[in-house]
């Protein structure tokens, strides 16, 4: 198992790195995001995407959704370390959860004329984008879907005049009636 900073022993041969999405339900108090993010940097964990907003104004509860990666041991440590933080109410790991649905929203600005402009619009239709804003030589698309779908669309736009991308990060929820 990895032990960054071990004074003694640095192992060779890593276990496979896997990706997961964590939902961290926290009391919405000052500094709570810094605590969570600081824990990741202090202990050398990865953050691939992070989304945070207050989800229950009455109860002052926020939900932080973090996409992270690491070996099985590291992911287990991340969950245990998050649980230790005083304002953290719950940590849910969606690893291997077939019922988990993840979505991300992106705003994508593409500039071009002629064939490029037509092709960009045609592809945006195929990906079920909304045209949020447009001019004679540019579009701004709004696209919602899995991170993979967003990546694919952005790659397609690159040769067609991609100008700028803004993404929200991932939000995840489980299918079915029951709450988490």
């Amino acid at each position, binding site marked *: *198992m990895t*032990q960054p900073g*071990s*004074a*003694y*022993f*640095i*192992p060779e041969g890593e276990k496979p790195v896997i990706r997961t999405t964590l939902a961290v339900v*926290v*009391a919405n108090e*000052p*500094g709570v995001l*810094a*605590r969570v993010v*600081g*824990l990741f940097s*202090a202990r050398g964990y990865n953050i691939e995407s992070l989304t945070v907003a207050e989800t229950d104004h009455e109860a002052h509860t926020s939900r932080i959704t973090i996409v992270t990666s690491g070996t099985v*041991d590291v992911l*287990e*440590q991340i969950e*245990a*370390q998050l*649980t*230790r*933080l*005083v*304002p*953290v*109410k719950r940590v849910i790991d969606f690893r291997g959860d077939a019922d988990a649905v993840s979505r991300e929203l992106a705003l994508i600005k593409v500039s071009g004329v002629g064939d490029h402009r037509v092709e960009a619009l045609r592809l945006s239709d195929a990906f079920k984008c909304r045209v949020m804003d447009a001019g004679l030589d540019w579009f701004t698309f709004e696209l919602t879907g899995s991170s993979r779908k967003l990546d694919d669309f952005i790659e397609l736009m690159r040769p067609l005049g991609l100008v700028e991308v803004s993404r929200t990060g991932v939000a995840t929820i489980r299918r079915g009636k029951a709450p988490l």
Partner: protein
Amino acid sequence: MTTALAAQPTEPVAAAEMTGAEMTGAEILVRALRDNGVDTVFGYPGGAVLPIYDAIFQQEEVEHILVRHEQGASHMAEGYARSTGKCGVLLVTSGPGATNAVTGLVDALMDSIPLVCITGQVPTHLIGSDAFQECDTTGITRSATKHNYLVKDVADLERIVHEAFHVATSGRPGPVLIDIPKDVQFKKAFYRGRPNTPHPSYNPRTEPDLALIDRAVALMATAKRPVLYTGGGIINSGPEASRLLRQLAEATGFPVTSTLMGLGAYPASGSQWLGMLGMHGSYEANMVMHGCDVMVCLGARFDDRVTGRLDAFSPGSRKIHVDIDPSSINKNVRAEIGIQADAGRAIAALLAGWQARVGRKAKLDDWWAQIDRWRARKGFAYRQGSDVIKPQYAVERLHALTRHRSTYITTEVGQHQMWAAQFYHFEEPNRWMTSGGLGTMGYGLPAAIGVQRAHPDALVIDIAGEASVQMTMQEMSCAVQYNLPVKIFILNNEWMGMVRQWQQLLHGERYSHSYSAALPDFVKMAEAFGCKGLRAETPAELDAKIQEMIDYPGPVIFDCRVAKEENCFPMIPSGAAHNEMILPDDGTDLGTAIDEKGKQLV
């Protein structure tokens, strides 16, 4: 630390206050400290805490000890906490006051010591403006504390103080910081008294899962070569946990070893005691850890100084790990049975389970015969001649001459710390205060002052090195001011001994900056501070000088001149396993004892 809050509050909140006696923030703070059982605050005044100092001036329940540097305050609070099981409290000003206290906060975080640190802050409207003596205290201490608070509204202050004490003392104890801007100290609010409402998100588990306890007992019952590997979690759980550990050891007949932090939980005079384990642990303890078939880890965390090389750590054992902190379980070493619980509660459940399932001592004759052969190797052996005092001998004599008294030992960090752990034999918990996790040179002297403050009639000795002790030496002035008769017993070899030892073993005997070519005359220094100075240079005079130190009613600095180039053995070198210890007289060429790969590790 479940017992820490039992004694409070000191008296019911007066009816007048329930209905609305308004107080300033500073008064609310002092009142809340009192209601949380605080009798002593270690601190240093400054601009941003003056209202609090004014409130302290106008009451008598909470006494203030004036330190000489804020780091000293933090270690005093630690010493106070470790020796009493209560929460230690320090009070410092904004900016440099807060940054100076950080070392002690991290020290307490690593060693799970309950502290509440009050810091002053610039007024709310100046926060973020780079005001005089402003720093981002909560930002700086976020990873130095278990939790911290910035109080922006005086209406929140009382709740936060009570919550801070709860967080500091429950679960895995640790330091909690409250940053209070100066305007909040002046503003008024109502004081309502300590509430009993549960915290919405912080509810640490202390009771063990009984199904896991059953599995653990079943595994223990099958053991042929078991060991109880105990740690500071038993000390933190309170004296009852140590009592239960002794019963569990007696009931099972298992041998007992301990980490540096757990010394005293099981008595060193007990027949099943193996001594401390780890890098400078006893030969028998490390061989038992390496060769055991069932390891029962109680309130310890498989620190790298304990495990050595991880892939060769106790290769044949099945492991049970009890820890109050879920992140300690499976962090460094995977446990077959991981039990999240307070060490004392878990030991009680294991004991009850053992009585019900087995009901007698395990048959371990072969294992004990093997242990006796390891004990006969005498890994702590040293030769004491007639001219120079060996440091090991000095600690042995100190133990022999103080063992029949109520004695508390603190240490600095380095070779002397390991010799103290090896040669001063602890019989009771809370008698041993040392910086284990962070390894803070300069911890021992202020910690001794904190211990002495909590135990005015006890004999409190800081076993020190001449290098470490100079880091916080100015606190002797504090000891003199409050007539706290601490004894600073310096093993003076003129070297940063542990650095020198590693340079000898790892860096081709190139002694880069580890020798102090200029040292103060510690006897004259003692006199300058207004305490007594003593010096011993030969084995013949040692006992009489130690006795003189013990008999002197005030603080003492004892300059014990010891052999300059003594190494601390046994030693598990970098990159090695428990059964590859360097022993004091085994003829290993010290220059080649650590291979190239080991030299790169630390």
